[in-house]
């Protein structure tokens, strides 16, 4: 395909109601919008006046060199960090300051860069924790495990089992997480996030430290999740190849600033981005 053809076929991004990608996926309207976000830790400015949006059903990547502020950005989205300036619009309305659990209740789930699973618990139990927000019975009822609590567990277990089936981890269902290799732990983390049935899924370096085969598997799962459940995905990733293949749009950050935003092709040809990755002297 020539460059010219790509230009004509490239999706039109300013259509507010959404568009259809080349491979037939439906991308909807904007679900989350960051407006002029600035985040400071004391004197250090982690994020400097960044604005971008995430559309429904898309795979949105945030890339950048080490220390660019990518994880901070994700933590702002997940409500873990509260930016000093700027505002976040979620599903059309301004999001007030929230605790992470309140954000989770809004249908946002995440995975962590350095796996945060309960090592001593089985895969199944770990994934079940992802259902916490869907359980209404209290600790006491659950301990007695009668009536409503029992029914609720059965319902939630069903959702969890579907996720386990989806991610093909049936064979390690009862294995304690501590005994699993790194690549599988990452998959279990994804399973836990999926169990929450999120509408927006945040993935913090889902492929860090994986070998080629594990990366391929993970990429396929990310695409499948997006495809099957229509989940909107925002991900941070170092592996450029993976990002370019997976995502619909990419935000590039460097030293806390946004230096590029657009389709993978646009970003790839952006001079600022090339400089940031290949390295030029900063003044």
């Amino acid at each position, binding site marked *: 395909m020539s460059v010219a053809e790509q230009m004509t076929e490239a999706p039109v991004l300013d259509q507010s109601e959404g568009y259809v990608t080349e491979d*037939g996926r439906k991308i909807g309207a904007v679900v989350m919008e960051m407006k002029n976000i600035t985040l400071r830790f004391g004197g250090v400015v982690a994020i400097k006046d960044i604005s971008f949006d995430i559309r429904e059903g898309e795979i949105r990547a945030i890339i950048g060199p080490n220390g660019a502020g990518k994880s901070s950005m994700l933590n702002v989205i997940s409500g873990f960090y509260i930016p000093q300036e700027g505002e976040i619009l979620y599903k059309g309305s301004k999001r007030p300051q929230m605790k992470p659990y309140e954000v989770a209740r809004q249908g946002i789930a995440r995975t962590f860069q350095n796996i945060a699973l309960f090592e001593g618990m089985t895969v199944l139990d770990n994934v079940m924790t992802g259902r916490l927000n869907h359980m209404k019975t209290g600790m006491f009822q659950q301990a007695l495990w009668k009536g409503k609590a029992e029914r609720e567990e059965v319902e939630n277990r069903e959702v969890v089992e579907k996720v386990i089936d989806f991610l093909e981890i049936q064979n390690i269902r009862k294995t304690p997480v501590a005994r699993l290799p790194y690549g599988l732990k990452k998959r279990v983390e994804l399973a836990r996030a999926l169990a929450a049935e999120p509408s927006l899924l945040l993935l913090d370096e889902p492929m860090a430290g994986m070998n080629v085969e594990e990366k391929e598997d993970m990429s396929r799962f990310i695409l499948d999740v997006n495809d099957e459940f229509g989940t909107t995905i925002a991900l941070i990733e170092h592996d450029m190849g993976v990002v370019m293949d997976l995502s619909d749009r990419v935000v590039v950050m460097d030293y806390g600033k946004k230096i590029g935003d657009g389709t993978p092709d646009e970003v790839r040809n952006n001079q600022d981005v090339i400089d940031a990755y290949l390295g030029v002297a900063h003044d």
Partner: protein
Amino acid sequence: MATASTDAGGLVSIPALLDRNATKFATKTAYREKEFGIWQSWTWAETREEVRNFALGLINLGVNKGDFIAIIGSNRPHLYWSMVSAQMVGAIPVPLYQDSAAEEMAYVLDHCGARFIIAEDQEQVDKVIEVQDTLHQFEHMIYLDPRGMRKYDHSALHEYRHVQEQGHAARDELTPELDRRQASLTYDDTCVMLYTSGTTGKPKGVVLSNKGIIETSKASSEFDNLNAGEEVLAYLPMAWVGDFIFSIGQAYWTGFCVNCPESEETLIMDLREIGPTYYFAPPRVFETQLTNVMIRMEDSTRMKKWLFKKYMDHARRVGPDILDGKPVSFGDRFQYWLGGLFIYGPLKNTLGLSRVRVGYTAGEAIGPEIFSFYRSLGINLKQLYGQTEAGVFITQQPDGEVRADTVGVPSPGVEVKIADNGEVFYRSAGVFVEYYKNPESTASTKDAEGWVATGDAGFFEPDTGHLRIIDRAKDVGKMADGSMFAPKYVENKLKFYPNILEAVVFGAGRETCTAFINIDLSAVGNWAERHNIAYSSYQELAGHPQVMEAIQAHVEEVNQSVAEDEMLSGCQVHRFLILHKELDADDGEMTRTRKVRRRIIEEKYHDLITALYDGSDTISTKTEVTYEDGRKGYISATLEIRDAKVVPVTTQKVAAE
């Protein structure tokens, strides 16, 4: 039809057996499948509903009598049902090996001219789509698992459940047609067509009639007193005749329950949960299980190791006798009972074999050590000898007459004779009708009187009447000095060592024998770990000097044992090497049933064979490998060639001359 009413009481087809079971065992569980972590089950009555709805759907899609329907996938109840549905509408099911590459599939699909294909999931659908342009008769594909299939062009693609629903919706209109088609099935109609794994050349389509399948199922069920209460685990490829007989033939004849595992990876866990009463596994599975047990015992505490050894020794001494009902002293029985309580019972439970009443192994020779291990635990493991063309059973071992080195007596209804050249022939009601579209092969295998050549050389033991198989008849050759060369005999002896996964012996027309060895990565890897030997790959471990030492010791032991056999003493291995890669079906070096393809290996590794005979110490080579997804790559290696000590047999040779 004259035979229709006589032999099986009007039950002339699998669908007819299904109807009987749906009344006779209406509420009894017929199928179980683990899905979403729970064993889902279907009764015989429900099974009939499922099968009939799908059959109606097939008519709705335009399946005609006599069409071939290919079925590709792992053991799933729905795929088993689809075979019976196909039979119900007068079509012929052709199950395929699900791990075949697309080109291999293309050959079979084109050869049988399948108009319809039922595929398990996206992976199989993709393979068919890849080759569909070469398939001229192919029209529609039905898939079971809709995952990832949403964006596919659905003009010729249908979801299993939709086909069923559409069939169900049109039931008023189509039921008379379905009943008419089922009623027209006769005892001589084709029941199923199974492709041979193709040890030599292209796979051949073996046509088996209703008569063949039902008679065989009936006779073999009676032989082992199988009843409706049996539980089997269906995990062997559906394209293999054994699985068809066990999971469909015998299951429908006796009405027992077929359990399908959740996935290949969960097999061991599922086996433990189900606890089958009737169990079949190739020797390799038993070997792997035993190796795992032994490895785990090595890592265990001293006390446990001591207990295990003490009680296993006792079991080896008296276990087989107790199983065979021979007299054993009270003291020994008591100790065996104690052992059962603390060692054998828990061990059998871990292996998932606690409830096995009848267990079979076949396909390859099983190591006497391995065989006696299971028997001494009280597991009634027996051997049978069979092939696709026979509908499995040719000979099998009756209870109480079980030995590692024979394959038993002719199965009920089977006649066996040995030709002058040693080749085994058989004749029975269960033999195949023909090779599809291949009259020459049919004629060269089955003669006018119905005797079928097995291609195996063997003999009956005079005192017991048990059959012993030596080797493939065509592999049995002569060495340069005229002595007998039976490679499999030596290979089996080598393979009985847990460290050796596979061996290929050469020597036809040569002065001496040589061998390729494949190490068993799990056994040797564990040994390496315990001896602090670092390795990063199969290739590196295979070339390690200490591994070479260990394998050399095994080869020399085998030489000693081979030398004891007067007829075959010339087959001692003089030189050997350890291959840098595992022999693999994806590379065409083995069949899908994991039998070595001798000729292909000879061609592919001719440089290595030359090196084995020209006296060189090392050889550098580059080998093409095929990955699971069909891509190709190369690995290069420098292999060391070792001389193994042989036992001099000159005196015997002189005597023979």
